[in-house]
């Protein structure tokens, strides 16, 4: 049975990429298997665990709940784009320093949500609460991740460390 295909062009981490793919292909599978960007992980395929979170036009999205064709013409950011090769972003470094990861499978999704949170200027409390609350981690018990978020947020402009007014 041949499924219908369509050409999809997305900018991934600033690089324009075009592939023909089945219209039913999930964005997560498109990134992982069509483009070979396997840093984005698939944990539940029903939008709960958050491991597959990427940014689409800057907005965090469960890539297992989106189709590749929906991302056509958009800019996608994945874990591979967080730092130049051989380097760690400040949040990645904070995760390492605070033991915010163990098996590392859920980690890329958390990093992407935190990047969006950082850009949106959400408070540290909200990042540790609602934002982290959107991810399931079986290994860490979240304590190391919260410590990493606090470490990162402590380096952000002062206002961000405070509670954001509703």
């Amino acid at each position, binding site marked *: *049975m*041949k*499924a219908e295909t369509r050409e999809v062009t997305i900018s991934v981490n600033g690089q324009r990429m075009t592939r023909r793919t*089945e219209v*039913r*292909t999930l964005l997560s599978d498109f990134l*992982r*298997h069509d483009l*070979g*960007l*396997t*840093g*984005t*992980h*698939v*944990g*539940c*395929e*029903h939008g*709960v*665990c958050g*491991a597959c979170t990427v940014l689409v036009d800057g907005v965090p999205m469960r890539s297992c709940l989106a189709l590749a064709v929906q991302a056509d013409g958009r800019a996608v950011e*994945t*874990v*591979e784009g*967080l*730092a130049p*090769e051989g380097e*760690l972003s400040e949040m*990645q470094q904070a*995760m*390492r*320093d605070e*033991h915010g*990861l*163990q*098996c*590392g*499978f*859920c*980690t*890329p999704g958390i*990093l992407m949500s935190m990047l969006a949170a950082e850009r949106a200027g959400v408070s540290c409390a909200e990042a*540790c*609460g609602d934002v*982290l*609350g959107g*991810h*399931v*981690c*079986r*290994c*860490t*018990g*979240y*304590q*190391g*991740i*919260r410590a990493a978020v606090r470490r990162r947020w402590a380096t952000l402009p002062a206002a961000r460390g405070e509670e954001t007014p509703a």
Partner: protein
Amino acid sequence: MNRLVGARVARINDPRLLTGRGTYVDDISLPGMLHAVMVRASIAHGRVTRFDAAEALADEDVHAVITPEQAMARTRDLPLVWLAPEQRHTHVPVATDEVRYVGQPLGVVVADTRASAEDALDVIDVGYDELDAVVDAEAALADDAPLLYPGWGTNVVASYDIGDTGEEIEPVFAGAAHVVERRLQVQRLAVNPIEPRGLVAQWDAGTESLTVWISTQVSHHIRDHLAIVLGLRADQVRVIARDVGGGFGSKEHLYADEALACLAAMTTGRPVKWIEDRGEHFGATFHARDVVHRARLALDENGRFLAIHSDIVGNCGAHASNVGTGPFRISSIMLPGPYRFERAGTRIRGVVTTTTPTGAMRGFGMQEASWVRERLVDEAARELGADPVELRLRNMLGPEDLPYETRTYQRYDSGDYPEALRRVGAEIDKRSRPSEGRIRRGVGVATHVEFTGLGPSKMQQLVGFHLGGFETGVVRVEPDGSVVVSSGVVGMGQGIETTLAQLAAEQLHVPMSAVTVRLGDTATAPYSASGSIASRSMVVGGGAVVRAGGRLRERLVRIAAHRLEADPGDIEVEEGVFSVKGVPGSSLTLAELAGHAWLGWNLPPGERADLEEKDVHDPENVSYSYASHAAAVAVDLDTGQVRVEDYWVVHDAGTVVNPMIADGQVVGGVAHGIGIALHEEMRYDPAGQPITTSYLDYVMPTAEDIPDMDVSHLCTPAPHIPGGMKGLGEGGTILSPVTVGNAVAAAVPEIAEKLVETPLSPSRMWTLIHEAGLHDEAGPHDDPTSKE
């Protein structure tokens, strides 16, 4: 030099995991690779009468469909690992047309893509003769219960006693001043590493060899059992575990579906990938727990413990798993915990039901034992009006009692059990958050001793556990002075790559950066039968690396002394530089030493050229970690919701190699246990259909459920382990469910007697609160479960 053991060293594999450059099994792609999807049973009990794949095979994307008949013809039975006395299952078929649980693999579809394989699955017509299901283990014991294996005449797969039984123990209960008796239960759980299981298999017809990349905790065990079931020699199979996205016990043996995916690669002659999806995980990956204890604790008139006994009915699922009744057995041998008992024992009945088999999960049997023992002890304290900490201390083994032989055959090694409890007690005394209105607050404690570092091979033979308990460590200095450590244990997030590197670097007196750790590949790793299970990697595998590294250092010192014309006793080693004490400028780097050694030049008489040492470490005893925990909870009497507000751990796992990793293991373990305490439950309907098959139904603990914890370590070295390590990956999970349970009992003593079963979910709590008449009669609080 700076000590590496005990240092908070950053993990060596973090950078690749943080940057998306890890290699988990689904990240592997081979040229010409096909994709497999399992055909699974959709009913709980019956026989397959029709398996029609004609329409699926007509699809040009579909390369093969392996039917149950073909699978049965081409596979041999899978041997089980842990056999109880006279256990009725010793082997199980990889494929059978007899269905005994929803999710049982029947056949395989292989297609160009996973999506096309799933399309084909939709058009494969499977027909069944259906039989009655039985989900509950106690129901399966009834005379009129459907029999899974009618030839047995019973659903009991194994039945035996541990410790004191019958006349040895009953008189103690009969004569005791006080007996606490409860029916205590631990729910069925799904293990849920965030990376599901999966593999890529490649059959090389030229060399007749099978290479399998798989997400596993036990590479060699997978290799040995794949060879058996596929009719190959062990040397024809190579198993490679790269990055593993969590195991927690679910990836510690060969599953039938994994064997079938490999068969698909052999059948098609093409590489085949199979990745479990999350829905599949809830039926296909072995569950854990699901056990009922009818348990009793006897005390004398002074509150001294006399005896503990439990009658255990454990749900094995559709067939004995690789570990069979092992969890119930471990519950039994660890039931006495850190206390003195005159008598202790259990009766075990392992029962088959039409559900997914139950096997290993973090806390294996010990979490259940702690739930039983520590609830009974807390209930005794409540009934006697005693302080729960004081009653425990009164009955606890002191450091002067160790080593101590329990009534259930354990020889506890070392430590100060009362000190851990006293420290936790001191913490909770500092804190008192009051109850406020309808929010009740309470603090609970619990304590345990833990079986880690499985284990002496001789002991494993005695208990019918058909895997060796030793580990081998190989430490090699390459000609350029770089250091390679090989071990048969597997990294799955527990940080073992880093901690083994710390041990080797400390032994050789080289910087961490000089050391590479290689794990997981049966072609290069030394043989490991048991692999990374049972909190043993650091204890048994690490012990081997300590000894191998130490011996290699001694050889390097001898070689350096020879070359520097000094006495070996005068050689100092610092950061990989060998110098003569008090002789400035007289030194050799490790690279200078190694370069010549591997040439066979300038060696002292009798010295070998290769700079490689191998140590086989079969410990003389299990290593007994222990801990005390305390939890502070808030219970909302209106909603039934329990919140864990504070949590304290005092833990002793012997030598702590990396305190950052140790804390992470403990905290993550406690979080897993809080999930068990409050949320997680794998449920079936009466027809044997699983009804919790997504994260919407099966509630995993998230950040809001888990408070930041206060973790501290006592560090009493294991006297019999090189390096002194004890296991620490499971203790958090073992003790936290009952610690939370005891805290809830303290918060709402009116329902304490009924707190016998987890999860303490809002619905269970709401029911108990209502039954106790604690609901707010005036308030608009309707039964949330019966809302229109």
